[in-house]
């Protein structure tokens, strides 16, 4: 709700007071130290009149310049503090800030008073009362008040606020109350966007204003404030410098000294104008020119001579301001983040002194350079180098948000190697990750390595980064793998750590792993990420050994290697890590010959993991199973766990963490023939649905169809069927239509539909019809689908591999074709890589592999469905 307290005077904002029924918060009282120490005046009016009298006297002497205005602003501050104290307590922390010219302490006799009243939380009725009590006396004094009322949380949308408010805010200065609120207000804002918008608004206001004066400063009756070369131009130049580079006005234009002189001159003249015209009047008309020349004691025998000399000075100062503004507009670096700008020599801090005390902001310097495709400026690097040693690793990454930012920074992108090298050279990398310091310039003598260990490590990251835009066609296959990784930053982190153990001459992979664990604890890496990085660091030599020194045509070698990596994602990461690592040894080490061997091992292992895993079922000898039994919770017996795991592919154990396995075991107990256990949980990038039930025809297609009917996009998943007919299906999906977000109890609705569909109470085909027609009508797929049947890779199953453009309901449609032909869908692997869906089905029909003619019929049917033909 918006309420105007007194409408006649507000310019940008109305006073916004919100009523919230009920509670009053016991908020901390605003600090009023200054207010309480000031002598209390007899009346506000008396105090105000005394301050004005003082400024009028100075203005009359031609001394209404910077000092006089500062003094007047100071007296106004005391008045505001007194009013604040007398207004009684607000229910929440609140503070008052001076904006615009008042913020700069250049309050003129008839200037508006711009105030920001900032509340810590939502404004209550009590706060509204406080506002009335605080603001009404200011109006009663006849002041022209521009007031803005904000809550701290509104900083989040600051960039969209009124441009004039944004500009006034650049001069914000605390007068009374909890001054920290302004920092909190900015902290929730997007500073780079706000600064960019402020600058853009400033530029466009300058252009509009200049156009009104025909773009010339040589006005015979100039407006001191508005005309080109006037006070607004001066503040404009100062604001540009403040937002982008405080030293800007020293580097070009008229120079800082000339600007100071110009400002003093303009302020003195303006004070005389206000005094003489008794109002907010800034136009230097001919009559006033004579009066000002007289007050400022210009020499000359006639008024005309005096005016000519005075106006000569006016145009000289106006030219200085104009020159500096033009320079600022031309040379100002662009804001790219909080306290960060992009200058000609790269990203730099706006306020270096403030930055030197805030190490947690330094990573953003390098992130901004990567984002902007440029470097970090030399002065920013020097600042980092000079100060990095003063801080502990924790001070660089004090919060979870900072630690997440480090991981985001490590995403392989063009420029990452160069920025990491700058961080390393300036000592920052070793301060944030002390483990890396252990290999600083470390020399290990062998016949292969050509570079120090630290540089070798950074080069591995450069090699990975170069894969993004591969130089040779043979590299494109590896580049595709990189594009498919869900968390490529973990690969970079692993590369960064893989050789840190080389500080010792002992087994470096083990030492690197030990050191990596220290880092995991410090940056509080989640369990899944830890497991991946630890695996890659500890096994980083394995793939090159197998690829280059073992007989990879021996299926047993591939089987063992597949067992080591476990799942496709790790295989891809290890493959890329090996490629990057070997290439970083020397220019000659990674030959096309080695690349081919590496790729072949990748393909063989990938095929094993996706096609042949069904033959490896869990038996009594699997050590993970013993671990699971030993570490079981009290409510599960060893027998229950053994029974559940019996006959499942070993891959199951690599896909699920211990707690998930126990949950499956628990839910599988006493699972009646028609019972369905299904639950939804949020996962990393979406949701995860788990279904345990007894197998029945069309089960897989019905469950995937039920999800699709809610608009869910299935990204990854697995389906396992145990020999006793119990199935475990897991689907990772994204909720692009935000069904679960917008519908409380939406998860229960999905589970209910699955139960209804499996119990044949709902016909999923009918439910999906509308959606499917929409999809099939939309357009032809970008690439032709691939369907491949294989009767060799598995002893028990026919394997159908489908690579097709991902689309809503794809899984439902293809698995339905299989079920329609009487096939049992026993095992499924679902993967999505970009727009490509890669689904592998393990099928039997009447317990047997499919015959060639059955395969042909199914391929034809699948082809038809994938091409959207009836």
């Amino acid at each position, binding site marked *: 709700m918006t309420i105007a307290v007194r409408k006649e005077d507000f310019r940008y904002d109305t006073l916004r007071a919100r009523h919230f029924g009920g509670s009053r918060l016991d908020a901390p009282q605003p600090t009023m130290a200054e207010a309480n120490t000031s002598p209390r005046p007899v009346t506000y009016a008396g105090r105000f009149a005394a301050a004005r009298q003082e400024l009028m006297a100075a203005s009359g002497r031609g001394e209404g310049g910077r000092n006089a205005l500062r003094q007047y602003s100071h007296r106004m501050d005391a008045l505001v503090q007194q009013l604040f104290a007398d207004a009684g307590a607000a229910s929440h922390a609140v503070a008052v800030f001076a904006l615009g010219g008042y913020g700069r302490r250049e309050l003129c006799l008839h200037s508006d008073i711009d105030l920001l009243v900032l509340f810590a939380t939502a404004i209550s009725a009590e706060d509204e009362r406080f506002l009335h009590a605080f603001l009404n006396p200011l109006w009663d004094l006849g002041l022209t008040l521009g007031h803005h009322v904000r809550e701290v949380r509104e900083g989040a949308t600051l960039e969209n606020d009124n441009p004039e408010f944004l500009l006034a805010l650049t001069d914000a200065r605390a007068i009374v109350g909890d001054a920290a609120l302004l920092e909190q207000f900015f902290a929730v804002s997007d500073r780079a966007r706000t600064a960019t918008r402020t600058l853009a608004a400033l530029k466009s206001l300058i252009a509009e204003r200049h156009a009104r004066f025909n773009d010339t400063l040589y006005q015979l009756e100039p407006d001191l404030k508005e005309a080109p070369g006037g006070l607004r131009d001066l503040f404009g130049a100062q604001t540009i410098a403040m937002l982008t580079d405080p030293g800007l006005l020293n580097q070009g234009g008229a120079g800082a000294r000339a600007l100071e002189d110009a400002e003093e001159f303009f302020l003195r003249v303006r004070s005389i104008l206000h005094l003489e015209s008794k109002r907010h009047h800034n136009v230097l008309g001919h009559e006033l020119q004579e009066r000002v020349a007289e007050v400022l004691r210009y020499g000359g025998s006639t008024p005309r001579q005096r005016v000519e000399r005075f106006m000569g000075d006016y145009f000289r100062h106006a030219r200085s301001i104009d020159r500096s503004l033009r320079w600022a507009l031309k040379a100002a670096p662009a804001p790219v983040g909080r306290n960060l700008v992009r200058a000609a020599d790269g990203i730099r801090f706006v306020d270096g002194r403030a930055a030197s005390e805030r190490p947690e902001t330094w990573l953003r310097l390098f992130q901004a350079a990567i984002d902007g495709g440029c470097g970090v400026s030399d002065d920013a690097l020097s600042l980092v180098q000079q100060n990095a040693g003063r801080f502990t690793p924790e001070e660089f990454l004090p919060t979870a948000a900072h630690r997440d930012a480090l991981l985001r920074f490590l995403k392989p992108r063009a420029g990452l190697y160069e920025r990491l090298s700058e961080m390393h050279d300036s000592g920052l990398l070793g301060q944030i990750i002390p483990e890396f310091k252990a290999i600083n310039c470390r020399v290990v003598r062998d016949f292969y390595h050509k570079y120090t260990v630290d540089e070798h490590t950074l080069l591995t990251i450069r090699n990975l980064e170069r894969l993004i835009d591969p130089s040779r066609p043979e590299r494109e296959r590896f580049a595709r793998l990189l594009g498919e990784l869900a968390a490529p930053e973990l690969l970079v982190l692993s590369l960064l750590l893989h050789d840190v153990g080389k500080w010792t001459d002992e087994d470096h992979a083990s030492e690197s792993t030990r050191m990596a664990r220290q880092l995991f604890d410090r940056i509080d890496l989640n369990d899944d990420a830890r497991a991946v990085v630890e695996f890659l660091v500890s096994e980083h030599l394995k793939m090159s050994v197998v690829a280059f020194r073992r007989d990879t*045509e021996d299926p047993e070698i591939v089987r063992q290697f597949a067992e080591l990596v476990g799942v496709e994602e790790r295989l891809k990461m290890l493959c890329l890590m090996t490629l990057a690592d070997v290439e970083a040894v020397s220019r000659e080490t990674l030959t096309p*010959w080695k690349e*081919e061997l590496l790729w072949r091992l990748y393909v063989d292992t990938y095929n094993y993991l996706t096609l042949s895993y069904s033959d490896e079922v869990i038996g009594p000898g699997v050590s993970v199973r013993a671990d699971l039994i030993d570490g079981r919770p009290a409510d599960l017996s060893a027998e229950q766990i053994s029974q559940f795991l019996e006959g499942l592919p070993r891959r199951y154990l690599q896909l699920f963490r211990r707690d998930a396995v126990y949950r499956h075991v628990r839910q599988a107990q006493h699972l009646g023939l028609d019972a369905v256990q299904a639950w939804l949980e949020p996962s990393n990038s979406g949701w995860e649905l788990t279904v345990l039930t007894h197998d029945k025809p069309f089960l897989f297609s019905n469950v995937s169809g039920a999800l699709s009917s809610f608009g869910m996009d299935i990204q990854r998943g697995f389906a396992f069927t145990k020999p006793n007919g119990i199935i475990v299906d897991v689907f990772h999906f994204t909720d692009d239509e935000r069904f679960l977000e917008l519908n409380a109890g939406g998860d229960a609705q999905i589970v209910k539909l699955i139960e209804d569909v499996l119990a044949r109470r709902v016909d999923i085909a009918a439910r999906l019809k509308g959606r499917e027609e929409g999809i099939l009508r939309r357009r032809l797929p970008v690439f032709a689908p*691939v369907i*491949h049947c294989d009767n060799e890779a598995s002893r028990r199953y026919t394997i159908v*591999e489908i690579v097709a453009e991902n689309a809503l309901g794809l899984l439902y449609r293809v698995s339905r074709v299989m079920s329609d032909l009487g096939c049992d869908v026993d095992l499924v692997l679902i993967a999505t890589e970009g727009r490509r869906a890669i689904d592998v089905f393990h099928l039997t029909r009447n317990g047997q592999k499919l015959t060639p003619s059955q395969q042909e019929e199914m391929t034809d049917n699948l082809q038809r469905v994938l091409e959207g033909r009836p």
Partner: protein
Amino acid sequence: MKLIKSIVRPNKVDEVKAALEKLQISGMTVTEVRGHGKQKGHTAIYRGQEYNVSLLPKMEVEVVVPDAMADDAIRAIIEAARTGEIGDGRVFVIPVGESYRIRTGEKQS
């Protein structure tokens, strides 16, 4: 003298080297090569699509031995490099007329 040129599986190079060293043959040239023999490569499948791998990575090991040692060396190479499967490779034996040591210019025959 004979030049014995062997094309072997990459993973068999260490065993071939060890076998030759046992015969006191230590000078050798090892090169990464790609090619195919009778098998003409094979077809691999990745994500449902077949692709032909016609040039397979192999290692070429070259040694020059006195005529009297040639048979032993050839036997040692074959024994070390054999798996019994297709793709084990080939051994070529070429007569060498003269040989010079570059450092000294000394001729060896």
